[in-house]
């Protein structure tokens, strides 16, 4: 196994640009070490990016918040600049030991369908900045996740940061993780929504969900069924049903059943939209 530990972003990008074998990026280690230990991954080349200062920390920018990809869940939930539902989600990741190492970039990078933070990033319309020696590019979180455990990251790139636009004052946001227990759990389903109501009419709605499809999903059917409509209990129930039917594609696995996931997804959506 080839191993590199760059001390700066520039050094890391050079290593990635020159790499011959597809490198595995090591952030907080909470996923990759298990993958290696259980024999599911035997990476030929590991690049440990944990020591790159430019990738840590949260900063205010003109119209949003920029969160370094190595920002841990502990840092996220403790920072007042983190949007509320992202803090809620970060708090529900693992337990203290995991939150001290699990990073927002790692959560995106593994592209697990059960990732807890990614659905929130979808709901918040977050943008992911990818860095490479030949230049940066920004993708929406939605575009970044491309499938089951796959993302748009090229071998020469790393996740630099996540940008979250400032929230409108009248936006309502809600997050719910349904897990196998109250802490240290992997989700059976996870749902996040951000929406705005003017008068009684929904004027904006964006959602994200995990563990209900082979990848983290956004909720276009929910948006379609509720945007521009009066936010009545009947409309919410209808939209939730349609979203559960068409946005979700759940399966039976060791944590839960497809039946439970679809039904409870709809029930959770109703709960979140009715708050």
């Amino acid at each position: 196994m080839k191993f590199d530990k760059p001390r700066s972003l520039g050094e890391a990008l050079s290593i990635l640009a020159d790499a011959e074998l597809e490198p595995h990026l090591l952030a907080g280690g909470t996923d990759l070490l298990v993958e290696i230990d259980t024999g599911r991954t035997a990476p030929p080349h590991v690049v440990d990016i944990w020591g790159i200062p430019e990738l840590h920390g949260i900063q205010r920018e003109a119209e949003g918040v920029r969160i370094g990809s190595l920002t841990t869940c502990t840092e996220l939930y403790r920072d007042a600049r983190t949007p509320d539902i992202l803090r809620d989600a970060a708090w529900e990741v693992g337990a203290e030991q995991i939150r001290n190492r699990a990073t927002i970039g790692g959560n995106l990078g593994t592209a697990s369908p059960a990732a807890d933070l990614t659905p929130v990033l979808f709901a918040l319309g977050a943008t992911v900045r990818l860095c490479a020696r030949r230049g940066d590019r920004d993708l929406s979180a939605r575009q970044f996740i491309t499938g089951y455990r796959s993302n748009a990251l090229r071998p020469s790139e790393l996740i630099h940061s996540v940008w979250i636009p400032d929230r409108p004052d009248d936006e309502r946001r809600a997050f719910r993780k349904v897990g196998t227990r109250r802490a240290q759990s992997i989700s059976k389903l996870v749902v996040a929504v951000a929406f705005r109501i003017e008068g009684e009419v929904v004027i904006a709605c964006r959602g994200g969900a995990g563990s209900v499809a082979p990848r983290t999903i956004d909720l276009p059917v929910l948006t379609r069924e509720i945007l521009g409509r009066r936010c009545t209990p009947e409309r919410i129930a209808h939209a939730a049903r349609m979203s559960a039917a068409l946005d979700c594609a759940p399966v039976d696995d060791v944590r839960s059943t497809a039946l439970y996931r679809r039904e409870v997804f709809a029930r959770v959506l109703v709960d979140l939209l009715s708050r």
Partner: protein
Amino acid sequence: MRHVGNRVARPEGPAKVEGRAVYVDDIPRAKDEWVGGTLRSPVAHGKLRCIERGDFDFSRVVVVTAEDIPGDNVQALIVDDQPILCADTVRHVEEPIALVAAPDQGTLCAALDALEPRIDPLEPVFDAERSQDVQSEISIDKGDVDATFEGATRIVEGEYHTDSQEQLYIETQGMIADPPTADGTITVRGSLQCPHYVQKALRRAFAVPPEKARVVQCETGGGFGGKEDYPSVVACHAALLAHASGHRVRMVYDRNEDLLATPKRHPSRVRHRTVVADDGTLLAMDIDVLLDGGAYTTLSPVVLSRGVIHAAGAYRCDNIRIRGRVVGTNHVPYGAFRGFGAPQVCFAIERQMDRIAASLGIHPVVIRQRNMLRLGDRTATSQLLKESVGSEEVLRRILAHTGFDRHEWRKERSGNKRRGVGLSFFYHGAGFTGSGEEMLKGKVTVELDDDGCALVRAGSTEIGQGKNAMFTAIAADALGAEPDAITIVDPDTAAVPDSGPTVASRTCMIVGGCLDKACRTLADRVGGDPNTPFRERASAFVRGGGDAVATETYGSPPGLQWDQNAYRGDAYPVFGWAADVAEVEVDLTTFDVEIVRFVTCVDVGHAIQPQIVEGQIEGGTLQSIGWSHIEVMTAENGRFRQDRLATCIIPTSLDTPPIDVLLVEEPFSNGPFGAKGVGELPMDGGAPAIASAIEDAIGVHVTHVPATPERLLEAWLEAHPDDAFFEAKR
């Protein structure tokens, strides 16, 4: 009693909190030590044709197969049906086929990868209902059940299911074996509950007398029954590799192997048909118990026995028929887990009692008060309850504490989060069943040294339950000594007598009782002025040539009668009694169950160490709470699906409510200082109390544990089809 009833420090406590306690994998690696591993079957049933050797230099390792076993290829326990290594027919997934020892882990993995068992698959059986292979069958008959059913006006029927459960000791199974010494002595040390069980297994595997098979217990990181029988398997494997390689061999399972290959709680199906009078009096009980035993008999007949004896619950009824059987399937053998068959049947009878109460429109407390066993009553096996019957007192105390008798059970509730409260009432026989203790003849030896200190030699193991502190308190008070004069010798078959296994809630009551008597014998011999410190007197006694050794062998209290064929008579020396009240909140969005409050009231005879007793009760109760709604353990094609701690779920501190423990002390005349067994009892009542509380909250009759959110959702939607977003596909 100065130390019994007052806190005595755990002798091994400081080492545990400072990280100095030596568990098996903490033993420093010897210079020429090797590591051992197991080649296992990928299929549940088949004919083993051969083990193909792939591209690997096998001269670097040692491979052991069935034909290399010096003694019998039998995992000695109850029935000789389980081989140490599969020789022809594979009967379960992960069955051991060959063993490999290598100088290091990498070489070991490469060697195991290069071995390929060739197996012609056979049709497996996974459904216990359809199995024709009866491992054991037990019947209990009392009174005339058929006649009562014939004239019955009110019959309540119910069918109840419980799934398996993983012990989940946090320290995995592990053993270190030394190669035979010049005189042929084999030594293994490891994580275990029953050193003399392991010794028996080694004797058979190596065809050696007991003194040539030495077993040493390391500090043991939890057992809960999971280290009753399986350590014998690991020990035989490690010892065979040490024997074949000439090296010390370490075998420590990783969590994945431990979860996949080791025994768990027997899944059960229990049917009840009960004839009830209009006032709720039980007139006849017809009970059918079915356990899935898995691929080999292991301890299943004994688990079934305890299950059958407890199947009618802590209730009085003149006409009882119980039919129990445990059948073979191609699942990994199920085995011992705290409660040992009782939690399964306790869940069923307690749910049945609630169902009877509901059918009569009477309160769950009333149905129990009307039928509970009291002093002077006879149990299902016609055992006369002569003393130490805390039944009325535990119920009285828990009602006074919780007010559950004033709670309107199953009242229609509203809102999206619904609270409910439930009760369970139960008992658990302490010690071995029937004449078990009589046949076992557990021994304890106490020895005084020149300094007047007492060495306690017993085969009972410290597995966290507090045996060391408990024995220290008993010995100190029985001798009239201070705890610092007592040393509990660590279990080592070369240094301690066979006190019987550390199982069945028997360590305090049975072995502690022997210890009490042995100490009193010595105290009498030492004699002298009680105002003089014991050590001084004892030291003078020993230096004066007094007989400093006392051995006590267990003898049953007079008058106990047990008919093993008819399953009639005194099934246990005594019973522990308990009641639980659980309050839950069910979220109708997700069907998550939050345990809001849990109260348990337990008759322990006498609490030798109250804090330790509470710890046992709280821990056992949480295992039962976990099993009730979040601990899922299921097999698919014979393979356990929950094969990592990410998927094998037990409660965290956040899943756990505060557990209030109320102790009742109805002393048992034959137990040390009045104490009786408590280890398993707390495992019996949590699941039915929570199921009852869920039923109270949402009106769904819970008949299957764990009552997962998935199961509760389905039951809810069946009862409330209008509330469903989607039609359930069945």
